[in-house]
């Protein structure tokens, strides 16, 4: 219900910025209109990129009882437009425009069993949930996966708090997560909450469906910017508008089209609602579907895409080794 998420913009003061892992900064904010942060909530805030304001979202990792102190953690995004770089440049005393905590990823109290799955920076959305489940003495397992220990924020704190309930998988230590084994531990009374790279979440979702578990018990949040492939520069043609636009690596197709003056329809801008859908009439290359709106069947059809997150890549098979000589070219009809 959207009504609980009406944004109240306010100023917040930066109290502290400290590194908590390779490329990840922990940022403590003091909002001027404090409100308690529920587990799973995030704040929207305005970053400055090349002198222009842009909105970014960050999960509330922890907050005190009355919300007078909110902690977020920001990963410096590779190939970033600059939002996360701005966040890393913050210094104590600086002011930011932020919203109150917003909720799109609520934790339901009262499930028989919980599995929490965090991939990389996705731990920010999961950490507070784990803390609440611990306080409620719920039956939960916190599974935290990452590329290397150094890049995994809050490992020590989480291990202290959750002890045996924390399960860590680290790629470069050879202890990568087996998704089938993880989902195999879920039964009809288990709710699984996850936040992480889209590949991980897709794999979990596929296994979840294969095992015929109830889909509503699989909860996830997308940070709206990870795909199966690294972003590439590509070209989009819109005959109807007589446009040919280059979409650079660090910009979405929706933004590039908007920059070129096309009036586009959109709402969520993170691949959930399907409002930014465009029809694909011609394609050289492949589509990197980064949305969660289409079913796998619809994604395979490849006749439409959600241009706020999805991109074109050169590899016709999607495999990186097949990447052709760039750039991919896509012809679309906007809505």
């Amino acid at each position, binding site marked *: *219900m*959207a*009504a*609980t998420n009406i944004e109240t913009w306010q100023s917040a003061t930066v109290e502290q910025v400290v590194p908590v892992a390779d490329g990840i900064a922990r940022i403590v904010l003091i909002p001027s209109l404090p409100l*308690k942060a529920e587990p799973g909530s995030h704040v929207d805030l305005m970053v400055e990129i090349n002198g222009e304001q842009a909105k970014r979202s960050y999960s509330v990792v922890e907050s005190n009882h*009355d919300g007078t102190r909110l902690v977020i953690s920001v990963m410096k995004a590779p190939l970033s437009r600059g939002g996360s770089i701005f966040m890393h440049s913050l210094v104590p005393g600086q002011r930011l425009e932020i919203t109150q905590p917003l909720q*799109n*990823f*609520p934790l*339901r*109290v*009262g499930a028989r069993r919980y599995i929490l799955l965090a991939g990389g920076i996705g731990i920010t959305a999961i950490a507070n949930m784990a803390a*609440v489940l611990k*306080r*409620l003495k719920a039956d939960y397992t916190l599974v935290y996966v990452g590329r290397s220990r150094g890049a995994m924020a809050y490992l020590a704190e989480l291990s202290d708090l959750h002890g045996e309930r924390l399960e860590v998988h680290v790629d470069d230590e050879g202890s990568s997560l087996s998704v089938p084994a993880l989902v195999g531990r879920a039964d009809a009374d288990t709710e699984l909450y996850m936040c992480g790279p889209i590949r991980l979440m897709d794999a979990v979702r596929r296994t979840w469906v294969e095992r015929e578990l*109830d*889909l*509503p018990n699989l*909860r*996830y*949040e*997308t940070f709206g910017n990870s795909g199966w492939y690294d972003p590439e520069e590509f070209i989009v043609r819109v005959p109807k508008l007589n446009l040919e636009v280059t979409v650079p690596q660090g910009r979405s197709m929706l933004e590039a089209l908007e920059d070129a003056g096309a009036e586009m329809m959109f709402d969520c801008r993170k691949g*959930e*609602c*399907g409002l930014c859908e465009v029809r694909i009439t011609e394609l050289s290359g492949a589509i990197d579907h980064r949305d*969660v*709106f*289409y*079913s796998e*069947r*619809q994604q395979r059809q490849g006749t439409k895409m959600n241009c706020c997150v999805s991109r074109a890549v050169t590899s016709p098979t999607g495999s990186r080794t097949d990447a052709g000589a760039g750039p991919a070219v896509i012809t679309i009809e906007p809505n």
Partner: protein
Amino acid sequence: MTVVATTSSTTNKVLPHPLNAWYVAGWDHEVTRKPMSRRIANRPVALYRTEDGRAVALADACWHRLAPLSMGKTMEKDTIQCPYHGIIYNSAGRCVSMPAQETINPSATVPSFPVVERYRYVWIWMGDPTLADPDLVPDMHQMTSDEWAGDGLTIHAACNFQLVLDNLMDLTHEEFVHSSTIGQEELSESDFVTVREGNKVTVTRWMHNIDAPPFWLKNMRDKFPGFEGKVDRWQIINFEAPSTISIDVGVAKAGTGAPEGDRSQGVNGFVMNTITPETDRSSHYFWAFMRNYCLDSQLITTQLRDGVHGVFGEDEEMLMAQQAAIDANPDYEFYNLNIDSGGMWVRRILEAMLAAEGRLAASA
């Protein structure tokens, strides 16, 4: 000039209600497979039962376009379908089907409120669900005990819930509001004792060797046919936060030891009251009258329910008039008297709960 800071808002005329507490959402028999809507603590709530009989409370506004789910229909297992574009939610408030697309939007949820069914009521927790401990449901065990029989009704009271609590915590009003049934002048003349303990307040009043008012004379004669004579009468008002008041009431043949604990020569009732804020200026007032004699008589159950219904109608009228006068006189404050001590402790307790929720400032 010295400005004296007022730290207490104990006599706020329109008190906000704590959210981290159990309130009655409805009688158990009101919640059925056909969804119903009820506004509770300012929020519209859809109430229904699952196929296996479990009560469910969801926010009564669809995630999509806010159509009231209570106008929809219950579907298989624990689900309910929005009447507008057909989104189906389960009892956790999660979308299980979006008719117009092949996937389910991850944020498609409506708030689901914790519920507990106990003492013939469905209780709901409108605040932080992580604090919703069923052990905090106020004690109303007489409602389902073999030793007590009775029934009740719901009053829709057009006033702030605190005004109902004030009304029940000070029964001297009976002499004036209920003069034809339970009122008598000894009420305001007799002494009373107020005791506060944690989240509970008790006000005890004994009236010795008095004439039984009409309501109590009838009850005595139900148990002791042909009874005549003086009685000892008691009223022991038990408040439990946030808004449950069970009043131990009765009379016994005068001098037979009731004040000392032997109530065998008397009749005993419990007036069970629990008030759910609807808005800041209206309340759902659930009550029942339970008795411990003539347990098998449905006739007496019905007579008592109808009789008390008439008595409470007099309160309802007064409360509505009082709220209207409060709103019409915004510059006038309350004055507090010695007889208000029970109600004042209730206000203190509620204020502490509001402060703990960081909502005391909201009171004005």
